[in-house]
């Protein structure tokens, strides 16, 4: 199963500011009533963006100057709360290819890495600066580069970080783990035989 090697993502950015951006805010539970991920495009941050009557709240995602953005700039503990993979799926299916935030919640990070959506960390100060640049000059072209581990544009460059293993997996095009996990059937069978399974017997 050949996968894309994810090394560098370029494009416009959109700020999604605020700490503890939970996955209920990324995708409200009512959108989880589905048996495929196919209908999730456009639902990301829905209640943050729209009033009950469907009118816009003026969120940066819907600002014309940020249209077509491929990078989200976020805050601390991004993706906390529910484990719903619908959250990164909705983000990816809405055209976002990378998220840069101060920190990420564990489960969200794993879910995103596993679908080839890199989540990289930057310092609070650098993120504030990047948000400022992108708010003032929305057409700024950013690059998230996993090789050099930088978030950069023509006028600035900031260091980013990510744990070594998922970075390696993304860059080698091995972010979907199932292929590797199928390579050691003997070791798995041995554990399955020795570790008790719950039973009514």
């Amino acid at each position, binding site marked *: 199963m050949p996968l894309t090697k994810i090394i560098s993502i370029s494009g416009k950015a959109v700020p999604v500011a605020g700490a503890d951006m939970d996955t209920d805010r990324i995708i409200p539970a009512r959108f989880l009533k589905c048996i495929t991920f196919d209908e999730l495009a456009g639902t990301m941050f829905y209640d943050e963006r729209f009033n009950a009557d469907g009118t816009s709240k003026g969120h940066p995602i819907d600002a014309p100057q940020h249209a077509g953005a491929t990078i989200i700039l976020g805050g601390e503990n991004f993706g906390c709360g529910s484990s719903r993979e619908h959250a990164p799926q909705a983000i990816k299916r809405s055209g976002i290819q990378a998220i840069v935030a101060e920190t990420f919640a564990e489960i969200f990070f794993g879910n995103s890495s596993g679908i080839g959506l890199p989540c990289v960390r930057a310092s609070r100060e650098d993120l504030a600066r990047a948000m400022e640049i992108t708010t003032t000059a929305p057409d700024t072209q950013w690059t998230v580069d996993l090789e050099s581990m930088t978030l950069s544009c023509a006028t600035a460059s900031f260091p980013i970080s990510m744990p070594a293993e998922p970075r390696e997996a993304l860059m080698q095009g091995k972010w979907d783990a199932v292929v590797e996990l199928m390579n050691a059937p003997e070791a798995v069978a041995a554990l399955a035989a020795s*570790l008790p399974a719950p039973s009514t017997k």
Partner: protein
Amino acid sequence: MGKTLYQKVWEAHTAGTLPDGRTQLFIATMYLHEVTSPQAFAMLRELGLPVLHPERLFATVDHIIPTDDQCEPFADPRAAAMLNELRRNCAENNIRLFDLNSGRQGIVHMVGPELGITQPGMTIVCGDSHTATHGAVGSIAMGIGTTQVRDVLATQTLAMSPLKVRNVRVEGTLRPGVTAKDVALHIIGKLGANGGLGYAYEFGGSAIESMDMDGRLTLCNLAIEGAARCGYINPDETTFEYLKGRPYAPKGEAWDTAVKRWKSFASDADAVYDDVVIIPAEEIEPTVTWGISPDMNIGVGGTVPAPEQARDEEGRKAYTTALEYMKLTPGQPIKGLPVDVVFIGSCTNGHITDFRAVAPYLKGRKVKPGIKALAVPGSQMTALQCEQEGIAQIFREAGFEWRLPGCSMCLAMNPDKLVGDQICASTSNRNFKGRQGSPTGRTLLMSPIMAAAAAITGTVADAREVFDIR
């Protein structure tokens, strides 16, 4: 040098190391429910792979089911489609499903421990963040995403990196009227909603060792709200007493062997932790959230804080957003705040012990007129026990709507939802914006007895005063 339970269980379940450096971790048990599994089965079909170990998988339906009328077809066709998809996937793959007619259906995190499927020393996963709950018996239990559910269906393993371990000790005796829920909220308030990033929490100390199993389940359930992907408690006599005789617990000679094995997983006395936090039990009050993150909480005697009281600039912004959303004013006492809805239930507080704790105080009292009060047992087994013990009747007589088991108003994927900006005194686990089904709804998290006090008085109240608990 001694090892922690986390290290021991991790090592016992390690199948190997992947080329990228991650561990291939064997999963002893996976739970499935209707919301996060259908796409995983679809992915599996797309790859043409079979389910490798169906005997290690257990499914139930909880998130989408109505709690008033469960006659099929459901009024909501999308909910019906999700349940039927789960049935199809379980039937096709020979997976045990605790369906509506089984007498064992319920919230997945209630069903596993109640049936004794959840056992010490296991690795347990589910496509649900509150899987942390199962750590209460001394397992490594964590929430995963749907693609990872597929990985386990196909290989019974996951690609994972180990977490660090923080020992969170609550020492001393809890004051009367202070419950496991208050302990959990207090810990989250102290360490922050992001405080556990990168950690598993090992809960210990005399206050936690003396908790019953349902209290321990509540505490571990909320580990994720403090950003710890898993929380656990070392198995002890309370654990074994709880598990003994449950349908899936080992029997006869196998029981003795199992207990011996389970004990060996407990953290060694000289285990080394990446961090240790000690909290005096006496400082914990009945706790209530005032904001939109579980760490935004105060003792019931406290006042709503001002943004200036936050730790830093980011915190001040978060407080400002929260105050605006909650329509609260800094300095306002939380006690006396009128509520519209009361919800007792969820995987956090839908246990038999939770209803037993509340029932004696409801006897002879009535829910304040105008308050909508819902009591939703977490599972069919708990519901039955509540009927048999007369607890359900006490709730009904007090004016609660006694509902059928499910996740209900914790996340409102079924018809149980807040309307407009209603305020709900809720025993659930998240006070996020819009969590209870209305994009402007407001949630105050608290313990079951505190929620009961809110139902009786129609306001946030100190249960110790309302029910004369001393």
